[in-house]
């Protein structure tokens, strides 16, 4: 599978002479030294990420880790100091003004943390913005705008103004706007961070539901590990502008590569996040006490067994046996691995 979006050796340094500073960073200078000696701020260091089509790639990191800087490189709201950004194999850095605008209109749409809706336009006008910018005729704009607003659950609110809606509803408009653009790639910059927890869960479910249907390539930025684990097909963890670990989220949870990530994942409710598929072993012919779906999470399993650790289950995926689950392994998996043990 070829990647939809690839970042190759991406560096970003903030300051007047950033291109020259890349050499220092490549030679191994760290963020503090660069700031002290050369008065330049290191934004991103040697980022290599492949984002597969139809997957949700979540980029996670604490504030200041460079995640918002990173997502703005994909549509070149920020230009890198060095490196390549490939979209469908084409280097975005080589695009001229018009081609770049075309890319932003037709290939990538974006959802923002602070919604960034136009306050003087109605909800419908906001939702149809990407199409009207491209000069589509009014009837098409209208139909598409209404369709996607209805899809995100905002039917009947078309003629309101953004200020009249709650935060969650405003972000639904933001999502409808991104969907109206009908692009393959959707960039979501902390899209749910400004919402309160219950609405955030709603919006996450909405996104997963839409994704099941639309199979877009989504790049999602968050600082919330629970959210990251819930949404991610591919998880990238950033720290101080560099990738610390990336891969399948369950894999990262079970095998953190570095004390920073161990720290990070130690507070997670592992029983809810981990799935049977991640802790099962190959079938060895032992006697089984029943069958379970590979996609069940461990919490469900504990509830199913009533806490009995002597049971062994056959694991199935679409009616095919793929492995077996010993409840003892399950219990072990609940304890976070700590380095040195």
């Amino acid at each position, binding site marked *: 599978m070829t990647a939809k979006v690839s970042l190759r050796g991406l560096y970003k340094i903030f300051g007047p002479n950033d291109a020259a500073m890349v050499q220092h960073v490549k030679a191994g200078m760290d963020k503090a030294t660069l700031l002290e000696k050369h008065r330049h701020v290191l934004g991103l260091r040697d980022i290599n990420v492949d984002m597969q089509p139809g997957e949700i790639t979540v980029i996670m990191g604490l504030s200041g880790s460079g995640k918002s800087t990173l997502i703005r490189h994909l*549509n070149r709201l920020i230009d890198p100091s060095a490196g390549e950004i490939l979209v469908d194999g084409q280097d975005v850095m080589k695009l001229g003004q018009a081609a770049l605008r075309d890319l932003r209109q037709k290939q990538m749409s974006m959802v923002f943390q602070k919604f960034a809706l136009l306050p003087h336009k109605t909800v419908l006008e906001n939702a149809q913005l990407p199409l009207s910018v491209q000069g589509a005729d009014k009837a098409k704009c209208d139909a598409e705008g209404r369709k996607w607003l209805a899809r995100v659950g905002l039917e009947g609110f078309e003629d309101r103004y953004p200020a009249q809606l709650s935060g969650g509803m405003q972000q639904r408009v933001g999502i409808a706007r991104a969907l109206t653009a009908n692009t393959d790639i959707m960039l979501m910059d902390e899209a749910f961070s400004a919402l309160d927890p219950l609405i955030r869960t709603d919006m996450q479910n909405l996104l997963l539901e839409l994704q099941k249907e639309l199979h877009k390539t989504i790049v999602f930025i968050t600082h919330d590990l629970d959210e990251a684990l819930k949404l991610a097909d591919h998880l990238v963890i950033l720290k101080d502008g560099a990738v610390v670990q990336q891969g399948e989220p369950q894999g990262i949870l079970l095998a953190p590569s570095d004390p920073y990530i161990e720290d990070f994942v130690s507070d997670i409710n592992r029983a809810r996040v981990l799935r049977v598929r991640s802790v099962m072993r190959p079938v060895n012919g032992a006697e089984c006490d029943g069958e379970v779906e590979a996609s069940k999470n461990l919490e469900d399993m504990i509830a199913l067994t009533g806490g009995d650790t002597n049971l062994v289950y056959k694991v199935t995926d679409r009616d095919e046996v793929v492995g077996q689950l010993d409840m003892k392994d399950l219990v072990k998996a609940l304890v976070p691995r700590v380095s040195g043990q």
Partner: protein
Amino acid sequence: MAAYDGVFDGLGLRDWCDEGKEDAPMSMAQLLAQSGGGDAAAETNGLPFPSLDVLHEACGRIGQTRDLTAGIEQGFLSIRSELKFVLDPITQPLSWMLDGTLWVFQSAPWWVMIPVLLLITWFVSRSKSVTTFVALVLLFFGFIDHYEVAMQTLAIVFVCTGLSVLLGVPIGIGMSKSDTAQRTIVPILDLLQTLPTFVYLIPLIFLFSVTESKLYGIAIILYAIVPVIRLTDLGIRLVDKDVIEAANAFGLTAWQKLSRVELPLALPNIMAGVNQTIMMSLAMVVIASLVSAPGLGVLVLRGIRNLELGVGIVAGLGIVLLAVILDRVSKAALARVDTARKEH
């Protein structure tokens, strides 16, 4: 002996100084010194500030202060014909517009003019109370026989404000897009705003004939254009950065960004600037009457010149009334723009 002779002697400049001595005409100070000899002796005893005039006494080659002002005047006069050659055709349309609008406002009968003005008021303010108030004021002007002069003033304010907005908004947009432009233009705006209003008129009188209406037109526009430029610049710079980023992310062209995002969001600020521009052009109309601008200002001037207290005060209050209705109408328009975007 003059106070600073020693300095020039010490520097070995005495010969250079004396070359053209005694040619210069006598200054007022010298004249006074001659007539009242005792005082002059007392002055030279101390250490006078080394001003141009004092240094001139010691060294004839150094000019006096009056040479500086004369130099400025000479300099201006020497480029006057070239300046006139360029500016005259450019500004000629202003004369036509002012004369044309004045003609329309004066020749249209009151029973046409007042309803038209009220319709405009209703159109921009959509407020019954404001429209009623404007109607009362206009009828009051008619009642005290000041209708014609009020219309003249109103015509001048309309033309000058219109042109200020037409020129000021694009300049403000340019300023908001470039920090260099902003750094260059802001001192000019400061100058225009602080220069005493009469000073505008002096060079203009040299350039154009006093009977031409563009003379006062230019003076009013120069003075009144400042707020609309400043507030357009400010308004566009204050547009939410997140919204601008979203506009970029969805691939809006520079023009689409300006027309769909920046200008609509800056509109309340721009309207506040227009309101200020109207007020300032009204303030300048009185001073412009010194150079033949018709209207209420002429009556104020007559009040001052002939000490006709009543005439001056009635005309002055008339200007206040005009200012109030223009302010109310433009504020109502501003409020309408402001609420159109928020809750209804």
